[in-house]
Every structure is written in C-alpha cells, then in structure tokens.
C-alpha cells in the first residue's frame, strides 16, 4: 500500500476544514464517538447542519480564536492508499507553517471561494506550491452553491488561475480544477448532481489516480550515512554497516560507489533490511549497506554512484524562508543541516526579499523577518554535497539552526 501526502492551503473561511471533514466523512473514516461529539458541538452552536470542520480543529488556543494556527496532520485511507493531509493555515503570518506542510507533500490543494475568485492569498499559495516544486496542484473552487452552481463562474476563475500558472508554475507541473460545494459534499467523493456540466473526476477520484512513485527515483543516487553499525560480537566480528535512507535514485549490490568527501571508490558488498538481504534499494528506503573494503566512513558522509556526477559546495546560493521570531541578516552564523550533515555557515549576502503581495523581489530589503522568503549566499566552514533543489528536492534542501538557542530558524532551497 502506498501513501499520498497532501498539503492544503486556503484563506480563512474558504471551507478547508469542511472539505477535509467531508473527505473523512464520505470515506467513512469517522468513528461514531467522534461524529457524535461534533454533532453535539454543532447543536450547541445553533447550527442546523453538522459542522464537519470541527473534526480538524486542534489546540485550545485555536478553539478560542476559531482559526487554525499550526500544521495539523489528518489521516484516512481507502482501499487504494493511505492519505496524510498536512492542514496548514492560509494567512500570510503563517507562511512558515504552509511551507512546513508543503515540504513533505506531493499534492497541494488550494481552496478558492467561488464568490471571491483568485485573490492575493491564492497567488501566494500557488507561489509556495511552485517554490517547493509540488507537482500536483488541485484548485478546489468551493462554495459553488453560493455561486448558483454556475459553470461560467468556474471557467472565469480557472482562466484567471491559468494566467498565473504561466507566470509562476514550472514545466511538468499538473494543475487540476474542480468545482465543489464542500458543505454538501458535491464533487468531493461523489459527483455533483447540481453541476452536470462538470464531467471530470471528483476530488477523491483524482487523488486516487495520482502516481506516487517518488520523483526522486530518477535523480542521481544519494545515500547519506546516518549511523555506523558495528556489532563487535563474535558472530558479526568484522561487520561494518552504513545505515541510512536512500534520498534519491537507487543502489544495487555489486555496484561501484564513491564516498564523499574522501572521493574513495568501493563496491557495494551487501544491502540489508534487518535480517533480509536485498539486491537493490530505492529512494525513501532505510537500509544498511556494507562495502568491499574497510573505508573510514562516518555520519554525514555520502555514498553516490561512480557513474553519477556530484557538486562539492563550500558556498551556496539559496532561496530561504525565515521561520523564527528573531531576524536574520548578513554576517550571521548558523549551523546548516543538510541531511545528517551539519556544518557552520555564514550568510555573506542577502540578495533581496520577496514582497509577498506583489511577488516581486525587493533587493533593498536585507533583513529577514518571520515568514520572509528571499535569496541569500552562504559560506560554509566545510563542504556539503547538495544538488540544485529543482533537480533533486531531497538533496537540494537544508535547514538553518541558531547557534545559541538551537531553534530551526530557516529552510533553504539550493539554487
């Protein structure tokens, strides 16, 4: 069984929570006690319908304010696959949460209120989905009931959105448009009888048919060593295994590999998944690899295929999103974590910060505040072996950690 990871974005009240609640409800993923609880809560609030949005409301503070402020994870499955939804708030002050939710997703659901059409926030949501190279974007045009289930409304919004795709999207990205009425469930799991003009897939049908085979499987093979396994027992006296998760590509037994940063080459002697020996290992799989000779390899080193190229970076250009309350600026020093590798890094140049409203870069702005997105140059104390984010998302991203309070202050995409 495979997993489809979804991130959601929408402005407050576009109906995101209702839509997710609907997906759960119509796939029978809600247990009786939970349903009873939200039915009771809906009555208490004086509603004449069951407010499915209550299913995903989380923390106390949020219940008080009536809005979602963090990333919540929601799970359901069909007979086809398991779904993980990272439900993140859509407002500008939660850009970092949106990016967090999007970083682990292969599908982005963007909600639009049919009465409002494409607004500034929609542009931002699509910009973030594209920045993170999310391949499948589903534009959910919701509350069609309040727009008379009118095909023209749908087509107009679609046209506006497509104009933006031309500017902000990337090649290979798939953008799908679906007219919805989340409260009644139209086109979520079941086809809408009110919108016979829409003959395409419902939201769930579309999600069920997306291919989840990792994009990174065709990228160059990368195996960052997480941990060295040395048993020191009689039975496994000479065993020296390198534990890690294949980030991209694949490795096979007998293949020539190169160790970074030592540049020594060796051959894969065996691949272990617990007690089982494997011929091959693919992206996203955790295994233990042994090599033909006793190389001196430790955490943070990387195995690659001899036939694949690599880049050694002692400085790098990146787009980052600032995630901390305290600002970031030129001259500041951090730990850069790239996979299991951690090196000291200094921001030497801030190229500019994105004006999140116009989506233009402001080159006069040099200081990152919470939620800012912008371009920087970093100088590294030791080399890392990263790829460009656009060609390998798994090996092209990193985080910055504050030297003093240890917070994760930024996420970066190598350019």
């Amino acid at each position: 069984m495979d997993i489809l990871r979804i991130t959601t974005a929408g402005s407050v009240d576009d109906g995101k929570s209702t839509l997710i609640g609907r997906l759960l409800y119509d796939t029978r993923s809600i247990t009786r006690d939970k349903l009873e609880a939200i039915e009771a809560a809906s009555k208490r609030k004086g509603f004449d319908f069951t407010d499915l949005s209550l299913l995903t409301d989380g923390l106390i503070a949020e219940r008080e304010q009536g809005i979602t402020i963090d990333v919540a994870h929601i799970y359901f499955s069909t007979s086809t696959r398991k779904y993980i939804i990272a439900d993140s708030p859509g407002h500008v002050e939660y850009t970092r949460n949106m990016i967090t939710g999007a970083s682990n997703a292969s599908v982005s659901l963007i909600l639009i209120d049919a009465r409002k059409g494409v607004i500034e926030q929609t542009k931002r949501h699509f910009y973030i989905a594209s920045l993170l190279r999310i391949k499948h974007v589903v534009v959910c045009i919701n509350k069609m009931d309040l727009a008379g289930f009118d095909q023209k409304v749908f087509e107009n919004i679609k046209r506006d959105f497509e104009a933006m795709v031309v500017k902000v999207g990337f090649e290979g990205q798939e953008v799908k448009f679906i007219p919805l009425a989340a409260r009644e469930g139209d086109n979520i799991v079941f086809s809408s009888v009110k919108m016979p003009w829409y003959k395409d897939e419902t939201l769930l049908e579309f999600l069920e048919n997306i291919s989840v085979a990792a994009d990174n499987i065709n990228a160059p093979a990368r195996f960052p060593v997480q941990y060295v396994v040395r048993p020191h027992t009689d039975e496994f006296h000479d065993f020296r295994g390198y534990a890690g998760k294949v980030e991209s590509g694949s490795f096979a037994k007998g293949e020539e590999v190169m160790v970074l940063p030592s540049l020594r080459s060796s051959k894969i002697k065996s691949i272990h998944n617990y007690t089982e020996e494997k011929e091959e290992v693919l992206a996203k799989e955790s295994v233990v690899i042994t090599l033909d000779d006793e190389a001196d390899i430790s955490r943070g080193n990387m195995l690659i295929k001899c036939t694949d190229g690599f880049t050694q970076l002692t400085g790098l250009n990146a787009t980052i999103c600032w995630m901390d309350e305290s600002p970031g600026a030129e001259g500041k020093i951090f730990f850069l974590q790239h996979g299991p590798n951690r090196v000291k890094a200094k921001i030497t140049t801030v190229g500019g910060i994105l004006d999140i409203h116009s989506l233009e870069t402001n080159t006069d702005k040099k200081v990152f505040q919470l939620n800012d997105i912008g371009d920087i140059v970093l100088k590294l104390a030791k080399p890392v072996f990263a790829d460009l984010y656009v060609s390998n998302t798994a090996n092209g991203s990193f985080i910055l950690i504050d030297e003093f309070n240890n917070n994760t202050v930024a996420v970066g995409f190598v350019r």
Partner: protein
Amino acid sequence: MKKNLFPRELEHEAIYILREVAAQFEKPAILFSGGKDSITLVRLAQKAFHPVRIPFPLLHIDTGHNFPETIEFRDWLVKETGAELIVRYVQDTIDQGKVQEETGKYASRNVLQTQTLLDAINELKLDACIGGARRDEEKARAKERVFSIRDAFGQWDSKKQRPELFGMLNGKIAVGENVRVFPISNWTELDVWNYIREEKLDIPSIYFSHEREIIERDGLYWPYSDYLNTSAEEIPFKKKVRFRTVGDMTCTAAVLSEAGMLDQVIDEILSATISERGARIDDKRSEAAMESRKKEGYF
C-alpha cells in the same frame, strides 16, 4: 489472507527517525508500556540497528496497577530481544510524598506517573525519550512534532515547537532540556495492527478475547480489580472481552469481543464505531484533557 496492507514507507521513516536519535543524542530510552505501540517501537529499533542489539534501554514507568499479563509479556520480550529494562515505580514517588494518590471512584495513577517519569529522566540523565504516541490518537497530538522539545520541567509549549521540513530533524538542545521522540507519529491504529500482523509480532494476551470480571460504569466496561474503587451497586460480572489499548487497570475500558485471533481483532477494529481513545477513560474527563496533560510533561 489480506496482503500488504501496511504501507512500508512508514517503517522506513520510523527506522530513519530511530537512527537519528541514536546519532544525535547521548542517552535515549524507549518509553515502554507493554502496549502494542511500544511493542512496535521495539521491533523497529531491532530493525534499525541489526545486527547490533537495541542500543537504548526500555524504561517502564510502573504504576503498580498494570494488567499482570502486561508485566509477564514485558519480561518475556526483554529476554527475547536482549534489551536492557529499567523500571521506575509510581509507588516510590507516592512514598516520597511528591504526589498524592487520587481518591474517589475515578481514582487512577495515570496522571501521577508523569512525576515518576520526570524523576526518571533527571536521575538517568535521559536526553531523548522515545514514545509510541500517534497523531491520529487525539486532536492535540495531531500537531505534535517527531522531535518534541521539553524544558527542564518536562513541559511542552505548542508555540515553541520546531518546524520539521523534508524529514530533517533538529535534535540540538540546551543542558536540562530533553526531547520526546515519536517515530510512529504518522501511523494510525490500523497501521499498527497491520504491522503486527505482517511482522507476526507477539502481543499481550489481553488484546484478544478472554473471559474477565468487569463492571459497567458510564456506558463503558471497566476491568474489575483491587485497584478500582467500586460502589456497592457496581457488582462485577463475567464477560468475554478484549482491550484495544493497554493502560492501567483503572483507566482502560474493555470491549465485548469474541475475537481470539489477530485477523478477527482487525476485522472488529475496521467495523468499530468507537475510536481507540474513546476507550481511554482518562481522556473523557474533559475535551482538552490531553493537551492540558501534555503541557505538564505527560507522554
């Protein structure tokens, strides 16, 4: 027989997380309750480090109100895996006067164990405690991080949680802080059961249908034991039941069941109408019960 219902990607992710713990921390431990989630963790840890034995001790906070079957199982598993077991007792914390036994008909030691855990973390100088909590269990858990940072008092602050991107885990902490780690965050109850089936894991017998003395209270079946404060009207009777979670005998409700085999248990869960936490009496106390307990350092 149903095949491949468990998404293996979840296992790869959990093993990755456990290896990050081994690499980033000095003194981690697995919080072991004897329940199916911590049994799953033990198997994942075996897999992550094979052929090395599990490099962390199992820490059991013993309330003294356990099902005897759980303790028996725990000791068997420790022998089987060669793992190190550390037990700390809530009774000791009570005897030291640090907490007071609850009274009344809902008295339980479930809340008290938090203090015993915090004491154990200090005493053993643990910097990472690996737990089997899942985000699908409860609303406040839905936002929990994989590495959840706690201050010196074990407290969780939802505003201070670090963003986790692309699976990168930041375990850097200050002296006195520690981290709770949740490798099976993204698993659902059904994922755990399917994993147990596909891995052929042994689990305590109370997960299967057995005859037991129970009482009925608030629409739930409570296991009858010396630890439960009962009134004169609450007369125990015998029924065939099983348990969906393994907590204390004072706060884990039974469900009527004939399911004696794993496949039958899973079928019952699939058609069940009460979610797993609905059978945890401790959560019924208030809607925000879990979040409040977490802020105080609970698992």
